[in-house]
């Protein structure tokens, strides 16, 4: 299945304007692939952040790539607010489908099971629920007087993430990020960047195999060393605090965001090392 191993640009080219794309919260984020999406000026993406978003959704929004974001929250964490997101919401440039973390997970779990909806506790009485046309309150069919929210399945066109390694067959080692599996199962296609390709079958390896995604779900792989930079890849490398800090500062307005992006879009030494 060598044909599924390609380069980052080819992966980016597969993602059409208007696609619904799922991205994991703040690690295993395919930043190199994200930069290619920005370079080729993809438009009208419907992002699903799983369950929250950080640097990449904010960069994509600031670059005009996004029309809708389905999220439990977008934030740069300790580095502060995601200002391109906040600004786009204020200006009405993007539609926000506000959710809560377990609602995103539950929606994807319904997607991976191939069922149309899934119930979830909580939410009743919140403005999150009041503003989501797709969320409904039903009566628990097994118990009287027990209202419960049901959520539609989330089925992204693409899940994209960065992982430590893949093998020649297209099996991908995820590490502890088991949520990536659910995302891949629920999505029509999954495109992955990895630090390296190994020459043994990952699924035959007793320890690695249990923390890996079967090639059945993998539609494209590209090698991208440091492909999560400047975010982290747990167990492999940490955040690049300096760069994220400079981003957080620059993203406070569109003009300084644009010039930050012009400087950093070429990738930097980390990506090519």
């Amino acid at each position, binding site marked *: 299945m060598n044909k599924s191993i390609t380069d980052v640009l080819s992966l980016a080219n597969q993602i059409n304007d208007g696609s619904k794309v799922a991205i994991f919260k703040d690690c295993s984020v395919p930043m190199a692939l994200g930069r290619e999406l920005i370079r080729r000026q993809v438009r009208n993406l419907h992002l699903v952040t799983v369950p929250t978003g950080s640097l990449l959704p904010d960069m994509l929004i600031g670059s005009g790539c996004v029309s809708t974001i389905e999220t439990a929250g*977008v934030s740069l964490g300790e580095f502060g607010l995601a200002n391109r997101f*906040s600004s786009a919401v204020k200006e009405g440039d993007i539609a926000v489908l506000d959710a809560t*973390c377990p609602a995103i997970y539950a929606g994807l779990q319904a997607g991976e099971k191939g069922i149309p909806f899934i119930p979830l506790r909580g939410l*009743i009485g919140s403005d*999150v629920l009041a503003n989501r046309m797709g969320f409904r309150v039903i009566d628990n069919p097994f118990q009287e007087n027990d209202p*419960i929210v049901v959520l539609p399945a989330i089925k992204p066109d693409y899940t994209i993430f960065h992982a430590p390694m893949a093998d020649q067959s297209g099996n991908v080692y995820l590490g502890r990020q088991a949520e990536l599996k659910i995302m891949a199962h629920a999505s029509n296609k999954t495109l992955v960047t990895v630090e390296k390709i190994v020459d043994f079958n990952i699924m035959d390896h007793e320890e690695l195999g249990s923390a890996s995604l079967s090639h059945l779900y993998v539609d494209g792989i590209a090698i991208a060393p440091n492909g999560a930079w400047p975010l982290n890849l747990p167990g492999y490398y940490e955040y690049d605090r300096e760069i994220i800090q400079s981003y957080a500062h620059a993203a406070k307005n569109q003009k300084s965001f644009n010039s930050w992006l012009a400087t950093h879009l070429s990738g930097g030494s980390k990506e090519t090392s």
Partner: protein
Amino acid sequence: MDYCAEELLISTIASLLDGLRHIAVGVLSPIPGSASLLAASRSTTIKKVSILGSMKEPYRVDGAIDLFDCAGQGRIDAFFLSGGQIDGQANVNLTGIGHYPTQDTRWSGAFGSAYLYFLVPRVILFREEHTRRVFVPKVDFISAPGTSAPNVHRPGGPYALVTPLCLFSFNRTKGRFRLESVHPGHTVEEIKDNTGFEFDLPDRVPETLIPDSQTLQLIRDKVAPIISDPYPDFARKIWGI
């Protein structure tokens, strides 16, 4: 022994965690995290403190789905929430200010609040800013409601609110906060001036207990080295480690 403002907050929050088994701490929560570790260090009942963002056992969380499922199973006894706005009915706004959806000020979003607030029995609200900007008569957006109709499945909810000025408890039946104690150096008048919602007031409001030397020793010797893993900047600022 001298103590700093953060140590008073840590000891105040820890006093609300007696007799529990599992306490979970969300992101960006160094003070609640420290309080949970302090409570655990002197408790015989606390089996686990889960700290989101910690990469070390026994504080590591086995993925976020596990955390939410754990709450659904009734296996999390306490959690902490904050809010850009919090009102007198303990409604929490993490979403933004102004008319939704094109809010003038948009914050991050609800995160796990709209779920965990319903399911964790002892949710402690904590905010390091005590002003009328934060404590409003009515939140602009209810990310998570403080109270629910009787038929809504809700084993959890608000238990207390801790600020740099005072400690409130929350009465779920009445849907109101009650001032429990005022931190040393502050007054009831000051709290009234800086709180935008009405709250119940006992005839005599006690002063918040300050951390004794044994507590401070525990915080500095046992808690600080652990919390410095997920929160290095915080530990450096407060304890210089």
